């Protein structure tokens, strides 16, 4: 295990240090005093585990192919852009555009997330990305979603605060979204159907949530003890006739 003190270190220098330590064969790196450093873990093709203490900057874990990142703090915007594989565990909140165009791996967020989370997510065969959010989400959740899974739990919600924003899953044409609770019809894109979950869905959800609950020390049966809504696309090609005569 290696440790880096990021205080006063410019992001380029920090990321170079991380890459050097990975190249030397370190399998666990602790980053202390991280605050706003951009691009941490981007493009890493390794099983290295990064433990980040602080607030990592924008565009963390973009294009990664297998890194594991634990954030003891909040994440900012643009996390896991086009992430291919790996696991992110964010113990605080995360900002806007989390998991944009994500193609594989898992993201667990303990708290709330911002706008445009999981937009353009994709899935192909066994590459099915998963984002699980413990708190609430802003507008455009799962916009243009094409594959993978988005799970929104809305635990520890401020009173009167809605679990999800407007324009949910607009343009969705693949994948699945599970929301713990109700989703008002007006919030959801026209291409999407909101269904109650059945037993098979429940079993599947339990599988995904088991690891999440373990990670954040939550009681799985308590989390499961609720109504869930399932959002799926009505058509696989909602705009297939758009330009047809």
């Amino acid at each position, binding site marked *: 295990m290696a440790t880096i003190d990021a205080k006063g270190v410019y992001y380029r220098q920090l990321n170079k240090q991380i890459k050097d330590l990975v190249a030397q064969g370190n399998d666990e790196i602790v980053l202390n005093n991280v605050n706003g450093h951009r691009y941490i873990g981007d493009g890493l093709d390794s099983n290295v585990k990064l433990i980040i203490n602080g*607030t990592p900057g924008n565009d963390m874990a973009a294009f990664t192919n297998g890194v594991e990142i634990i954030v003891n703090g*909040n994440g900012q915007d643009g996390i896991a852009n086009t992430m291919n594989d790996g696991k992110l565990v964010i113990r605080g909140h995360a900002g806007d555009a989390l998991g944009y165009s994500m193609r594989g791996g898992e993201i667990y967020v303990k708290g709330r997330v911002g706008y445009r989370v999981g937009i353009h997510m994709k899935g192909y065969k066994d590459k099915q990305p998963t984002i699980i959010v413990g708190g609430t989400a802003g*507008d455009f959740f799962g916009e243009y979603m094409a594959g993978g899974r988005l799970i929104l739990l809305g635990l520890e919600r401020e009173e009167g605060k809605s679990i999800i924003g*407007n324009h949910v899953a607009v343009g969705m044409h693949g994948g699945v979204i599970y929301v713990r609770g109700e989703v008002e019809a007006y919030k959801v894109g026209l291409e999407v159907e909101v269904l109650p979950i059945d037993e098979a869905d429940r079993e599947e959800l339990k599988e995904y949530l088991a690891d999440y609950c373990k990670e954040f020390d939550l009681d799985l049966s308590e989390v499961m003890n609720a109504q869930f809504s399932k959002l799926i696309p009505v058509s696989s090609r909602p705009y297939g006739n758009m330009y047809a005569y």
Partner: protein
Amino acid sequence: MRGSRPTEKIMSGCAISGILNRRGKCFSGKEIMDSIALMHDRSNGLGGGFAAYGIYPDHKDEYAIHMFYDDLEAKEKVDYFLNRHFVILVSEKIPTREVEAINNPPIIWRYFVRPDERKLSESGLEEDEYVAQSVMNINANYRGAFVVSSGKNMGVFKGVGYPEDIGEFYKLEEYEAYLWTAHGRFPTNTPGWWGGAHPFTLLDWSIVHNGEISSYGANKRYLEMFDYKCTMQTDTEAITYLFDLMLRKHNLPLEVAVKAVAAPLWSEVERMDDEEAKLVKSIRAVYGSALLNGPFSIILGHKDGFLALNDRIKLRPLVVAEDEERTYVASEEAAIREICSKPEKLWSPRGGEPVIGLLEGRSGV
């Protein structure tokens, strides 16, 4: 086109930060410089600036006019204008220090002035309007002269460079304010120039802005009907004047002005109760041309506090935090944590949801 100004519209995507001590206690500019410097990579060195409220307690009843001059000839002409319309109590160079990264500054001057009493009463104008019209006059008609700020007990310090270098250049650590806002610029359409840096101001209003206003043309034409002259060729300038129009001239509540610039989407209006829908529709009918379209996050500074606001679908970042006596707002959480590592509360407002920070005892800006 005037000497120092570029010929195209400026649009930008940038960093913003603000700190308010709600109890009105003044603190040095060092913290706001640290906060904006943390977001160094959001700017590209073509503009940085700060607004500071509470910095001139010895002259708090006089208008502090900060000026840029291209040359002494421009200064002589504006000096003559100011002497005719105002009583000038102080006229001095704004202190600066040599900073390697800051090149070719204009002549940077400040005046503390009171409107000439006879001229003021002859004009029949309120004092603020008299000053605002003078500012418009200088900016539109005096080549090579640019009013940087014109409020009381406040001032703007800006220029071409990274914000932390601009702060060092102006020795901002030596000033103490209860409200600081800051901007790091990333101009995308035109070259940066000293007057084109943020904040943009009129009287006590100052705006720092991340984003671009695609409704600029409509907003500008609307403002021209009320004698505002958009001479800086930037979208941000129009935001400043829109708030001046609605809040000072039309005396609207802040919440109404917010609903004009970031009008709720029609799909949201449909779900409102009748009374609220009626209000929102009326605002839209009267102030439709004040709607700001396009991505933005802004901080509007004023003597009583600030307003921070995102566009309706939140296409720019904005984070807010509070501790016991301060409210912080910035483009990135890290920029707040740099100066307040453990705030009591930290959140991101929704698109179009105003965050209003006020001095204790004030009810609205």
